[in-house]
């Protein structure tokens, strides 16, 4: 394949970025999207040009480190894949591909396609845990939990923290990220004791960090590479409301 790549270049946090155009020949459709960028970079390096910075680590869709805005869509055109799993088969020969970093106030760009997602860690710090000190745990089977409850907790807990939900939301809301954590932990008996305080603290932190409100457009669910359901947001709202009533 022969491609025209329109890629966002930005030196660092403080500089203004701009798009650069690169023509790339001999792209194989067997490459993944990131292998295509690896290939571009190897060319740039040998031409004495600066390679494009982008994040990735596991390259199998689980660490959440990768994440690009490709032709205006988070993680590209395919459903339920991360950028590292995206195959070049999804693109046509001689097409132009626009590649940008996540765009969101809560995720500042630090170089080219790399963003700072520490705000997600801060959200978890605000309460996205069960306070069980090492050594305090009871025997695991002493609390039985319905299979379907655990399965639902698992479905909420598979979030990889990539940030696509925020990046795709017109309000830059982190409700799906927070909702899935609150739901996972509130479903489990072990996490119930802190369910209320967890919901309140995480929502407060979300506001403090400049994430927007949820207006239920559902874009986050549609773009989530793990297919996490928007029903987690409803659950968060219920937990939050319940918490507020109790207040």
């Amino acid at each position, binding site marked *: 394949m022969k491609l025209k790549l329109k890629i966002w270049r930005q030196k*660092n946090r403080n500089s203004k970025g701009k798009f650069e155009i690169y023509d790339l020949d001999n792209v*194989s459709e*067997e*490459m993944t999207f990131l*292998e295509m960028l*690896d*290939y571009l970079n*190897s060319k740039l*390096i*040998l031409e*004495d040009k*600066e*390679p494009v*910075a982008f994040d990735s*680590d*596991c*390259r*199998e*869709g*689980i*660490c*959440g*480190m990768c994440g690009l805005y490709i032709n205006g869509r988070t993680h590209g055109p395919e459903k339920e894949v991360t950028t590292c799993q995206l195959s070049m088969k999804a693109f046509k020969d001689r097409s132009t591909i626009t590649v940008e970093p996540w765009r969101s106030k809560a995720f500042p760009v*630090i*170089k080219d396609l*790399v963003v*700072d*997602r*520490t705000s*997600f*860690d801060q959200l*978890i*710090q*605000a309460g996205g*845990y*069960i*306070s*069980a000190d*090492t*050594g305090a*745990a*009871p*025997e*695991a*089977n002493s*609390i*039985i*939990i*319905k*299979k379907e409850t*655990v399965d639902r907790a*698992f479905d909420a*807990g*598979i979030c*990889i*923290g990539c940030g696509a939900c925020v990046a795709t939301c017109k309000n830059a809301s982190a409700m799906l990220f927070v909702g899935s954590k609150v739901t*996972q*932990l509130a479903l489990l008996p*072990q*996490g119930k004791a802190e369910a209320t305080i967890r919901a309140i603290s995480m929502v407060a932190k979300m506001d403090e960090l400049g994430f927007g409100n949820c207006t239920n457009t559902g874009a986050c669910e549609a773009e989530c590479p793990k297919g996490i359901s928007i029903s987690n947001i409803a659950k968060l709202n219920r937990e939050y409301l319940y918490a507020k009533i109790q207040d």
Partner: protein
Amino acid sequence: MSILDSKIPDGPLAEKWSKHKASIKLVNPANRKKLDVIVVGSGAAGASAAASIAELGYNVKVFAFQDSSRRAHSIASQGGINATKNYKNDADSDYRLFYDMIKGGDFRAREANVYRCAEVSNSVIDQFTAQGVPFAREYSGYLANRSFGGVQVSRTFYAQGQTGQQCTIAAYQALMRQIHEGKAKMYNRCNMLDIVVKDGKARGIIAKNIETGEIERYSAHAVVLATGGFGTVYYLSTLAINSNGSAALAAYKKGAFLANPSLAQIHPTSIPKLNEYQSKLTLMSESLRNDGRVWVPKEKGDKRKPNDIPEEERDYYLERRYPAFGNLVPRDVASRAAKERCDAGYGAGETGLSVYLDFKDAIQKQGEKTISDKYGTLFDLYNKVTETNPYKEPMRIYPASHYTMGGLWVDYNLMTTIPGLYAIGESNFSDHGANRLGASSLLQCAADGYFILPVTIADYLADEIRTPTIPTDTPEFEEAEKAVKERLNKLISLNGTKTITSFHKRLGNILWDNSSMVRSEKSLKKALQLVNELEKEFWSDVKVPGSINEFNQELDRAGRVADFFELASLIIIDALNREESCGAHFREEYQTEEGEPKRNDEKFQYVAAWEYQGESKPPKLHKEELKFENVKVVQRSYK
């Protein structure tokens, strides 16, 4: 001749740990907050250690090179985590897990450490469950188990094919809580480049701030490495692409001994290499061998589609060769058997470098829903990578570099040969001998991090309570920082003609061809020479773009590849030294008539711990003789 003191407590095996805990030194809670601990790494081992040590009241600083501590490579582990709960009433016990690990490791691991790992395994499951890990449950609401290779009991706890994700996130959340409480501090996007040793003790690290490129100094009363494995030395592996051996190498060069570096696991069930551009291999968890049957065509070079090959023309070679364990033989055995079939011309697929893993029977017996409940995420992953549907057509798999059993030598307290420097999780050598059993790495990581290190580190820190905060403006920090900067400058200034990745690929090929599943004196000597030549070429012809004081991913990569060369040499030297076959280390010259590894217990029943002697000097070998007082050392058999 050995100066290695493994500090194994006296007494019967099952009592060692409780006795040790009862006699070990303690630090008064009021003194703990005056003591700083650095933890490098935030995977299953690092995050659990950091959180648990912070809970005890020490000041903890955690470093990781990813943008968030949640992304450590542990997140990718799939199939499960072992414990001896005996929920299945299949006669499981601490001793049995201990025995399975010792035997699986082909009698090259340290008894006392392995037993302790088994002993705390139940607490690990309790802890994870309490922290919200949604381990799979039966319809009754009780926890479910499955089997893994090399054992005959069902002791593996799992969360579909994402056990590592769920456990790592639980440990991460525990760490986030400690950060919230001000007891731990996280340094993300920070690359540790050296360890600072003062008066013989580990006192801090030199790290590169990946975003700004700045070289920074951090001090502590003790330093813990939880930096994972270096299977990426083979270039293609099942590990995250940035996993590396630089921390282990830095420790080695500062005086920590590196043990059994050649003992590396090649995992039997990875999705095969599909093309030349590939940057990594995707694992298909071993748990799949619970229900999947491995086969190749009986006919050489049979290129028919797998579903067109009738039952009687399939060779279920694992079931044939190993009737007792069948598809659940340990990894080293399964990998070599796959290689043997492929080398003999029976391999599947275009390249002939793959075998089938077939779920037809299991789906017929249990139904698609049950299979999807157990392995849904893995089947989806397979489908994404290969665009074939494993519910309809058997998977194609092939062995891939996966895990390093070898690592930094540690004593019973998990301390390296540098006082105050600890190594936990995959970065140490202690529990898996010459071959790791499935679902026992997450266990070891969490055992080390939650339950062992937080206790044993006190023994050292108890003598440090009068040491004030370690200053970073001392000559030791100065020198370490200078050396780090000089090396980075050198890499940038080379300005050669070849990319870093091209060197990494070539290095990987040399090792894969000559020092992976099968090795010989001849292949190893050849590999050593090739590695040395390539290393020279690297240091004269590599091209590292950009500058030091900026976000420069290529420079970080260059440092890692430069370190891989040194590690590769050490791996080969260790493999040459071990003139026997054991577990994953298969020297062609030493095999039984049936082609199984033939150990030489008289000469090699030891841990080979290598001491750095200076640049271009051969390392010095120290031997920790292994004593087996609680198992009978036998020829492993899975027939």
